[in-house]
Structures are given as C-alpha cells and as structure tokens.
C-alpha cells in the first residue's frame, strides 16, 4: 500500500522529484490535454514497469538502459498509433510530445530505480501510483492555466464549463510558455510549504 501511496504525494514525481518536466510544461495549455497526457504516461509506465520486472534477471547489466528504452519506445509507439486512430484531435494537440514520452525521465527512472529490483506486483503498484501522481499534477496545472488563460475548464469535451464572467479579459500569458513556468514554480513552492507545515506538526 505504501508503495502505491508514495507516488501520489511524498515522492511525487513532478512536484517533489522534478522529473518529467518537459511534458508537464508543454502540454498543459488546457485541462483535457494534461489529462490525456497523464493517461498515456500511466499506460506506458505500468506496462514498461511490469515487463522490466518480469525479465529483470535476463537483462545483462551493461545494456540494461538500452533494453529499457527499447521496451518503453515499443509501448509509446502503441499509444501514439492508438491516439492517431481513435482520437486524432488529441493526437494533433499533443503533437511530438507523445513520442517524447520515451524520454520522460519518470518512466526510465522507475524502471531503473524500482522495477529492476522488485517483484511484478510491487512494480505494478509503484508504476500506477507514480502515474496517477503525475496525472493529477498535469490536470491541476492544465486547469489553472486554462481557467486563467481562456476562462473555461475542460474545453473540447461535452463537460466544458465557462468559469470566468463574460467580460473577463483572458490572461494570454498563462497559455504561453512563460505561464507554464510561472504556475509550476508556484505549485512546487506551495508543495514545499504544505510539507513544511506537515513536518512541523
């Protein structure tokens, strides 16, 4: 259970360990983009971790990183083709950041640091926890940027809600790259603050 929980908070991949920054910043122009990226990463992370922990005893130590990368690249190709076939809109919005999941350090990091040393079940839980942690951070970041930058949330789905009043001037900077850096900076600071208060109790 602890294996699962730690990815959601105390060892949160993006906000505590600062891994997987590129997709975190790049695709979070809207909540739905953040969410779909998160789901894609969960899929790749879970399957790669399970496969790595299944064959961990067969891989020679020297070439292990190359083997992990090839395993990850295979699952990413599957996700990419899946998006292209069933959700062409999302595939277009995420652009090259879907293939770039291959070099998302969270996935390689979990394969190397956890899955290569633990049983299949534990690796599965660890991957699921880390993936969900990653997803909520992306969803939150995407929501904040979308609310302030476009005044809506979940645009592009049937659940779209207009949050800001009609005469609200969109803060365009939130959708621009600069906004991503700024919001994420404040999110990490908030996380630090919460941990500080929790520890001092």
């Amino acid at each position, binding site marked *: 259970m602890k294996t699962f929980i730690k990815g959601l908070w105390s060892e949160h991949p993006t906000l505590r360990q600062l891994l997987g920054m590129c997709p975190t910043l790049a695709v979070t122009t809207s909540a739905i983009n953040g969410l779909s990226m998160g789901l894609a990463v969960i899929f790749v992370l879970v399957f790669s971790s399970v496969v790595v922990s299944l064959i961990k005893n067969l891989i020679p130590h020297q070439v292990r990183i190359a083997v992990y990368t090839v395993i990850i690249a295979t699952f990413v190709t599957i996700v*990419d083709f899946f998006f292209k076939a069933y959700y062409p809109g999302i595939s277009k919005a995420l652009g*090259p950041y879907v293939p770039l999941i291959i*070099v998302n*350090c969270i996935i390689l990091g979990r394969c190397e640091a956890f899955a290569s040393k633990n049983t299949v079940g534990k690796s599965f839980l660890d991957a699921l926890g880390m993936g969900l942690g990653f997803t909520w951070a992306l969803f939150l970041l995407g929501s904040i940027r979308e609310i302030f930058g476009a005044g809506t949330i979940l645009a592009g789905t049937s659940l779209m809600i207009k949050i800001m009043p009609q005469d609200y001037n969109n803060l365009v900077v939130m959708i*621009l790259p*600069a906004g991503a850096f700024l919001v994420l900076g404040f999110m990490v600071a908030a996380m630090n603050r919460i941990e500080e208060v929790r520890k001092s109790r």
Partner: protein
Amino acid sequence: MKELIIIFISTVLINNFVLSYFLGICPFLGVSGRIESAFGMGMAVTFVMTLATAISWLIYNLILLRFGLFFLEYVVFILVIASLVQIVEMFIKKFSPSLYQSLGIYLPLITTNCAILGITLFMVARNYNFIEAVVFGLSGGLGFALVLLVMAGIREEMAYSDIPRVFRGAPITLITAGILALIFMGFSGLISS
C-alpha cells in the same frame, strides 16, 4: 542560404528549444547552477544534437522510408542517440576528466534529454533536406547552450539574494525561467513570416 539563416535565427532565439518547446528542462534545471558545468553541458548537447540530426536524417530517408519501416522511427532514433551519447561520454572521460567529474550524472542523462529526440522528430516532421537538418541540429544545440549559460549566470547571482524559504531551489528557478521566456518572446518580431 537565406533559408539556412532563417532556420538558425528562429531556432536559437525565437523558437528556443528550452523556453518555447520545453525540451531539455531536466538538464536545464539540474546543471544551470554553475557557469562552468553549464558551458560543458551546452557543448556536449550541441555536439550530440548536430550528429544525431545528421545520422537520423540519413537513416530515416535512406533506410526507413525506402523499406517502409517508418513505424520503427522512435526505436531507431533513440538507439542512435543512446550510442552517440556513449561515444561522447568516453571521449570526454579520456580528454577532460575534470569536465567529466563536473557533468557527473547528467552526461548519461543526455540520452533521456528530450531536446535531442525532440529535434530529430521535428526534423522529420518539417521535411528538411540534409543541410537544413544539420543547421537545425546545430542551432538547436546552440540555443540550448545559450539559455543554459544565461540561466547559470542568473543563478550564481541569485545564490547571494534573500529568497523566501519555500521558493528556494526549484520554484525560483522555474519562475526565473518563466521571466526569461517572456523576454525571449521579444525576439518573435525578428522574422516576419
């Protein structure tokens, strides 16, 4: 020639890999603490990027396209990059042990530097010819090195300033990067397309 200059300027300044495509953020946050290591990292990335675009272009256009193997694109590209990084690592280890020490863990991590895989994918998506691809790779690397150096300079100064405690480390670096990104947006008027 004109196209090449446009590719160069727009990749270094306007569509900078770090500040507008968010590629290579991990080394950007990790190695930008000191100017010296930032310079070494920037040069290593520039070198690997230029070679990676050249080799991937050849493999993609001469082998993958000809035999209809384009679905192997990602796997092949990442293997090219991984082996290139291995070569660069051995090279630096032999000729500059001090640089090797200061780059530390980040050298093997160039493999997972998304800027490098990213640039090969952009190159394919934009249908560059061979010369354009090499210039694109070189300017992408130089743009990365430029931002890394600027950031390292700022962070060396920042070490002496009084930053609120919860903002120390990563948060203030991210916010500084945000302001840098705003500044770099000023370059976007440089080329009117």
